[in-house]
């Protein structure tokens, strides 16, 4: 926590106008960079990289699948961190960030599940098995959906944020289970290739497109997060204006200047 300089970063962007200014600058930059990195990653992954010694060209599904699965877990982790910040320190943007991350994370999870099925069919010989890895990722997908359902079921934002934050954190237990499921139990899914004890077990020529795609996905997350957060803030402002209410503590205050 940045308690040493509380007046700077931690509180500056609690002001919706300041945040909006930041968002307007970052979103297009992140979006452009995301498109560039994903295009580069797809070029290296689908064209300018070798086929696998065992799987042949089927291995190219990995470049779409593996970073999507990483993002599925990374988005949930971000959501959990934002939920803690919102629940404990009541930072006004933290709840908005958590809420705005959910649909992005759910999309990455769905992408990982679908591309995983498409990869499983030619390599394993099946679209789906109920092994620990696949099942825990499906549970993650339902957690995203449940989290979003909580937000839409509760009208009052502060109450919704509180309940959704607790649900999100309890569900966070699933993230280490996903990560270590392939080490703790026998599973059809193979163990990690990149983030493992003895260094990556993947050839450099194939690691390059994988990391380019992962970077591109991360930038895409940043881009979509800022877009979603701006939309959410605008929606709350509109709701407040429609209700004819004065700005409340939900969004701290109007611009100070």
């Amino acid at each position, binding site marked *: 926590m940045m308690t040493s300089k509380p007046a700077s970063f931690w509180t500056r962007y609690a002001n919706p106008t300041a945040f909006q200014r930041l968002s307007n600058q970052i979103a297009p930059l992140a979006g452009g960079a995301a498109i560039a990195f994903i295009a580069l990653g797809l070029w290296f992954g689908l064209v300018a990289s070798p086929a696998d010694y065992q799987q042949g060209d089927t291995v190219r599904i990995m470049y779409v699948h593996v970073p999507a699965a990483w993002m599925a877990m990374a988005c949930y982790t971000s959501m959990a961190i934002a939920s803690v910040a919102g629940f404990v320190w009541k930072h006004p943007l933290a709840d908005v960030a958590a809420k705005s991350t959910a649909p992005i994370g759910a999309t990455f999870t769905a992408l990982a599940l679908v591309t995983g099925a498409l990869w499983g069919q030619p390599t394993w*010989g099946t679209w789906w098995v109920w092994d620990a890895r696949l099942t825990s990722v499906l549970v993650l997908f339902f957690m995203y959906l449940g989290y979003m359902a909580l937000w839409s079921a509760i009208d009052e934002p502060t109450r919704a944020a509180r309940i959704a934050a607790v649900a999100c954190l309890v569900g966070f237990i699933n993230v280490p289970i996903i990560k270590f499921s392939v080490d703790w139990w026998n599973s059809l899914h193979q163990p990690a290739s990149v983030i493992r004890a003895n260094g990556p077990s993947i050839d450099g020529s194939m690691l390059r497109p994988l990391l380019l795609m992962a970077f591109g996905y991360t930038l895409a997350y940043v881009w979509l997060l800022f877009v979603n957060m701006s939309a959410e803030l605008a929606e709350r402002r509109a709701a407040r204006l429609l209700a004819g209410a004065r700005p409340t503590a939900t969004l701290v205050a109007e611009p100070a200047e």
Partner: protein
Amino acid sequence: MNKKQKRLAFISSSLVVAAGAAALALTALSSSVAYFYTPSDLAAAAEKPTGNIRLGGLVAAESVRYAEGADARVDFVVEDGAHRTQVTFVGVLPDLFREGQGVVVEGRLAADGSVAASEVLAKHDETYMPREVADALKKQGVWQGEKPGS
């Protein structure tokens, strides 16, 4: 405790409780969370599992026998270094199926300890490399992966 500390205590204690519950549940369920038995698990089991089981391991070298005749029957041995289990299967094998390859077979455990498989899935390991690199490693004699495929 002020309000902020109370909220922090609430959220961390609920996280600890949930983690404890999950750990207990998963430990209790560990045998059913495991997707397959290994031949050693079967050998060590005091009570042989009945009904459909899944068995995982490597296809033993020189154990694959394709039966003569019209039915696409294949016999092979699944091993895990310590124990071996005989498997019979009728049907289409996945592309990655070969001797030395990891597989998971699903089927019925017979009284003699063999498995009549209704499904064979290929497992692959976490190593990815171009064919040229695999060939070079084999040539240099530093190959550590599965036995060379056919």
